[in-house]
């Protein structure tokens, strides 16, 4: 198969592209929409918003989620907030500035046209969500409140206490529930996508497994949308929910969808350090804490005094020292790597010496405990519940952890993958954040994709299909894919080895974190690439899944997900190895300045790397889409 990486960016000046596109693309008239069937996999912000809106517009929608309810998607866990260029604070924000900040924040590795559209739609999201009843934080006068977030010098982040993701997801879920109640959307919960079916070069439908009965069935439609989230759990340790996985995107990749920039992963600077080896889920402490908390480590690595006993002049506020203008609000990748440097030099704090301090002492002195409680009360409570320490009295201990994946399925301007009729939205695609995502921008992207972009672009594909029927699910391609899925799951059960899926996952995660984590080298990546296939082979030989395939079996579900992580891990390492530069979340130790800052190579790497499946996970084919910067000047990203 040949891969076509035409991004289909509309003509015209950047601020007219989206308007022009919406005028010129093909529409489906309202009376004809019920003649189309659309499958949406994933009911997080991106999928929930897309399914609800497509249902409202009159398409017949089937929505799938492995959760028991759409309200449980991982989007629910976002704490900090959502960006929008409303300029309600009058501090100089604009669509242009949000666009600029996002391109720069992404270290000049994203597509200008997509990012501009995202900034344009950001303002509509806030209006839409407010109309739906999202209780955003307000000021005493009743107007919406904003705060600032890492990587920006304006206040443009809207929030709902420390539960912004929850409130936004409940908003989207409620819209979706309304469509389900009206019969426009048919929901399939506790149902996992296990394969994609392509017939005559177009997406024809999906194969799913019922997680309650184990039954494997197929569903066909005119178009398929994947909004299945990110793949940070490849690292085992991450802030993502336990069930997050790459299976949907990976199965699409194996069926011809190119996977773009898999090495762009984000390590979040403020998580609670691991307390024992066995723990996989790490709890994130919202980045908004960096607005008032100051990060430091003891200057003397052997200083074992309790933090309040360490005098000011013996503390190293290393972010403030290294980045005087952004200080504690330096972007995530920079803040994370700086913490890694301190901990590797032995300055780590806490029982395992695996953290740095985030100290609110000064802020409490300046603003009073009440203000701090109002801003961060629930986060402080959460911290105390987990660690048994009160951040009002003792500085928090934090450490970076894998958090978000900028890479994902390659999509064009219309959010279509390289498989016609197969779309990808939200964190699962690669589109808008380049090599690094700014805080509070994922919720914005998920909702822009789901509410405003996809419902507009999908008609351009559907319109010419008027009068056609979806491929019937007794078509041989469906039958073959179903049989393969049944065999795959029966296969895991019949190996009868000695090791659980989790034990393999933990070992794979260790390899990835060590060799393809915050800092990568040619040597480390080659080491990972030599170790992963062996471990995968052992997985196939020595896996043990107890129970059977005819009722809920979480061990079996996990086996399928870990199997796909093994293949993804290899292309992540290959991508990191072939990208001979440092940019955003991808830091190659060989490519840094004398001061230890990331060194991009715009001459050779101002492009997207999109990988094509060849049948051998160790030998995918690399293709490139070059990136043009007509509006933003390529510059060294400086936060000094």
């Amino acid at each position, binding site marked *: 198969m040949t891969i076509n990486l035409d991004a289909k960016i509309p003509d015209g000046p950047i601020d007219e592209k989206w308007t022009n596109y919406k005028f010129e693309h093909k529409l489906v008239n309202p009376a004809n929409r019920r003649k189309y069937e659309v499958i949406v996999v994933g009911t997080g912000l991106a999928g929930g918003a897309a399914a609800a809106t497509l249902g409202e517009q009159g398409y017949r929608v089937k929505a799938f989620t492995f959760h*028991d309810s759409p309200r449980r998607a*991982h989007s629910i866990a976002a704490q900090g907030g959502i960006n929008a260029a409303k300029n309600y604070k009058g501090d100089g924000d604009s669509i242009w500035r949000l666009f600029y900040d996002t391109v720069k924040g992404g270290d000049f590795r994203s597509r200008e046209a997509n990012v501009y559209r995202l900034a344009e739609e950001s303002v509509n999201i806030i209006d*839409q969500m407010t109309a739906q*009843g999202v209780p955003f934080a307000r000021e*005493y006068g009743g*107007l919406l409140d904003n705060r600032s977030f890492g990587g920006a010098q304006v206040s443009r982040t809207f929030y709902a206490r420390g539960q912004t*993701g929850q409130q936004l997801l409940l908003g989207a879920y409620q819209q979706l529930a309304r469509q389900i109640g009206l019969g426009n959307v048919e929901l399939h*919960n506790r149902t996992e996508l296990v394969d994609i079916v392509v017939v005559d070069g177009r997406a024809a439908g999906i194969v799913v497994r019922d997680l309650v009965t184990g039954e494997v069935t197929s569903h066909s439609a005119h178009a398929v949308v994947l909004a299945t989230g990110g793949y940070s759990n490849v690292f085992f340790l991450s802030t993502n929910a336990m069930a997050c996985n790459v299976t949907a995107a990976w199965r699409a990749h194996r069926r011809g969808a190119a996977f773009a920039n898999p090495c762009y992963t984000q390590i979040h600077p403020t998580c609670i350090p691991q307390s024992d080896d066995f723990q996989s889920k790490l709890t994130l402490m919202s980045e908004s804490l960096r607005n008032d908390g100051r990060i430091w480590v003891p200057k003397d690595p052997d200083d074992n005094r309790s933090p309040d006993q360490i005098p000011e002049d013996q503390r190293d506020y290393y972010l403030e020292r290294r980045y005087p203008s952004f200080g504690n609000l330096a972007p995530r990748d920079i803040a994370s790597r700086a913490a890694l440097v301190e901990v590797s030099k032995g300055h780590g704090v806490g029982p395992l010496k695996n953290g740095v301090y985030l100290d609110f002492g000064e802020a409490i002195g300046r603003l009073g405990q009440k203000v701090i409680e109002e801003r961060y009360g629930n986060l402080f409570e959460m911290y105390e519940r987990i660690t048994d320490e009160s951040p009002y009295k003792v500085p928090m201990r934090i450490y970076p952890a894998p958090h978000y994946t900028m890479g994902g399925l390659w999509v064009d301007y219309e959010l279509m993958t390289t498989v016609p009729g197969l779309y990808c939205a939200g964190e699962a695609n690669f589109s808008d954040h380049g090599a690094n995502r700014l805080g509070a921008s994922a919720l914005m992207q998920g909702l822009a994709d789901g509410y405003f972009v996809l419902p507009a672009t999908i008609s351009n594909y559907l319109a010419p299909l008027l009068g056609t029927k979806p491929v019937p699910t007794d078509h041989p391609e469906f039958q073959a894919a179903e049989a393969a899925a049944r065999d795959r799951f029966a296969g895991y059960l019949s190996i009868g080895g000695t090791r659980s899926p989790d034990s393999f996952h933990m070992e794979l995660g260790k390899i990835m974190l060590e060799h393809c984590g915050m800092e990568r080298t040619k040597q480390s990546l080659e080491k990972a690439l030599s170790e992963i296939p062996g471990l995968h082979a052992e997985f196939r030989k020595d896996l043990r899944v107890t129970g059977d395939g005819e009722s809920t*079996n979480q*061990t079996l579900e996990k086996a399928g997900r870990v199997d796909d992580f093994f293949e993804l891990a290899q292309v992540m390492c290959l991508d990191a190895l072939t990208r001979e530069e440092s940019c955003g979340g991808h830091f190659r130790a060989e490519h840094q300045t004398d001061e230890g800052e990331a060194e991009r190579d715009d001459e050779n790497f101002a492009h997207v790397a999109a990988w094509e499946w060849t049948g051998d996970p160790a030998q995918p084919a690399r293709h490139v889409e070059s990136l043009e910067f007509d509006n933003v000047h390529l510059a060294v990203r400086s936060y000094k």
Partner: protein
Amino acid sequence: MSRELNLTLKVWRQDGPDAPGRFDTIAAPGINDEMSFLEMLDLVNERLIAEGQEAIVFDHDCREGICGTCSLMIDGQAHGPQKGTATCQLHMRKFDDGAEVTIEPWRATAFPVIKDLMVDRSAFDRIVEAGGFITAETGGAPDANMTPIPKPVADSAMDAAACIGCGACVAACPNSAAQLFTSAKVGHLNLLPQGQAERYQRVEAMVDTMEELFGSCTNHGECEEACPKEISIDFIALMNKDYLAAKFKNRKLLSRK
């Protein structure tokens, strides 16, 4: 510094919705008390798999108290002994060495057991589908600052909206009533100016669906005790008031048709 606990678990096992259930006694030695309750169960499951036995099925996902997926009765208490804490945020330091810990699924007719500790809570989704939304289709929303909302109103709506839909309120209620869950959603939307247009249809549709699926409330107040988000039962009073008003208003509207 961390302690090590040796526990005995009595765990409800049930092979499927129609199968009879039983308690299995499982020894759980060497538990680091820094672990969360669910990490303890992960470890127990790893050991079961190593012995060739089937892992205990339980619902969980975010592990930070926000998704509402986790759901265990621990020693007879929904989400265990710590107030205002979901099971996934409960830590083993709350347990004594040598303790026997009984773990059961939510028990309610409206929440049938799927397997072991996992139950089907989709009855909650039915209540939301009946009216737990504001009709505001995508596109055409007015500017978000058009309608100022007094901070205390927005804050109360947020207090209600904090509900995570876990079902602890139903599990704790002697009648398996869903008043606290339903009133949290009604309260969230009915307090906001944006929710006024559908205020009375909403409350009537949601309460009627709730009554079809769940038991009746007799004001025990166990729900508020069990709620990991400490949602106040005052929202039930608000819902009841709106429901009465709705019965009156909606009938009047009907007679005009």
